[in-house]
């Protein structure tokens, strides 16, 4: 039930955003993420954007794991 999918914001008007998932666009509410910007990836849950997906953090997590693995080899 806590499933959420990442989607890119392609447009926003007030607290409604148009997001794109795999080429399909839909409307979601930004009531729970009012500072979201066009171009950002957000997590969508039950018709609401609930969190921003931080690409930089994603890279950092990976790099950390990569370092661990490299360190062991």
């Amino acid at each position, binding site marked *: *039930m*806590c*499933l*959420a999918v990442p989607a890119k914001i392609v447009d926003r008007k007030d607290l409604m955003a148009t997001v794109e998932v795999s080429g399909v666009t839909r409307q979601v*509410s930004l*009531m*729970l*993420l*009012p*500072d979201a910007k066009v171009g950002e990836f957000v*997590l969508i*849950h*039950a*018709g*609401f954007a*609930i*969190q921003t*997906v*931080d*690409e930089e*953090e*994603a*890279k*950092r*997590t*990976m790099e950390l*794991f*990569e370092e*661990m*693995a490299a360190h*062991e080899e």
Partner: protein
Amino acid sequence: MKSRSREEEHRLAAYFRGEIARLATKPVRLMEVCGTHTVAIFKAGIRQLLPPEVELVSGPGCPVCVTPNGYLDTAVAFSRQADVIITTFGDMLRVPGSSSSLAAEQATGADIRIVYSPLDSLEIAAANPGKKVIFLAVGFETTAPTAAATVLAAEQAGLANFYVLSAHKLVPPALRALLTAGEVQVDGLLLPGHVSAIIGEEPYGFLAREYGVPAVITGFEPLDILGAVYLLVKRIAAGEAALDNEYRRVVPPAGNPAALAVLDKVYGEADAAWRGLGVIPASGLAVKAAYRRFDALAALPVTVEETKEHPGCRCGEVLRGVARPADCPLFGTACTPEKPVGSCMVSVEGTCAAWYKYGAGRWQV
């Protein structure tokens, strides 16, 4: 953990597997709290990648499963009222109550509609001014803010015929109750990524501080889960209790303050009954007095049948991690996803449903 080559993924997965096997010198039991994790673990075959020393047990993190029969019976009773339209997420439809289910009521004419978002209920309410539209507000901290935001939107739209029947629940108090009961020995916890996206890291601080249990907030990709198991095994081997956040790309330390503010405006903490765990203090959410007119239970009269439990179903023990689905005499015979007896079999996130779908436990776990 997207945006990597398959080769990189395989290399990292192999590294995690090797390290888990090297570090797990004695048996450890890790609990995945979240139903979405349960499904992801089965789907990716994570159990088969782990050494026999590492056991994964499922916890109480399936909102449909932990919703007690009394709530279902109330929803059924409301659905029988001629001027009521019930809106609900799809997974509530087939959950058996004491003597009926929403699907059975729908088949005999009740107006029950599946919605993708609670906001869809507002359109239905606007289009049906002569009806009362009741949204079944079930779910953890991920979902509760969406219901709270919908109440605020209903107020703004001046809708007088929209209500929520609230059974929202909170994850940290349930974890506290599980650890306090001590019925199941848990050496580490995989924490739900999307609940954490809302509540952040702080509410889990007590796990390490008070119970000495390491915990990892993690995502839903196979590599996220394998990485989290590695981090837990590493902590356990070092004798450290700490909270790690492997899912920083989605979970900032403070979570989502805007969502928490919306939640706090509409809902306040309340004691709540969980299937299998009983009543846990301050583990649920009740609509605040200022929004009482949107609270179906407070605003609308309803007579509910006496609640009964199915005598053979061991869903409650499965939710506590003290029984495995295969320990239940009904599993796979009287109780299947096609004809479920208990809620752990009806929800796609239920532990019994996942076991049944992905091999009915025909492997060593």
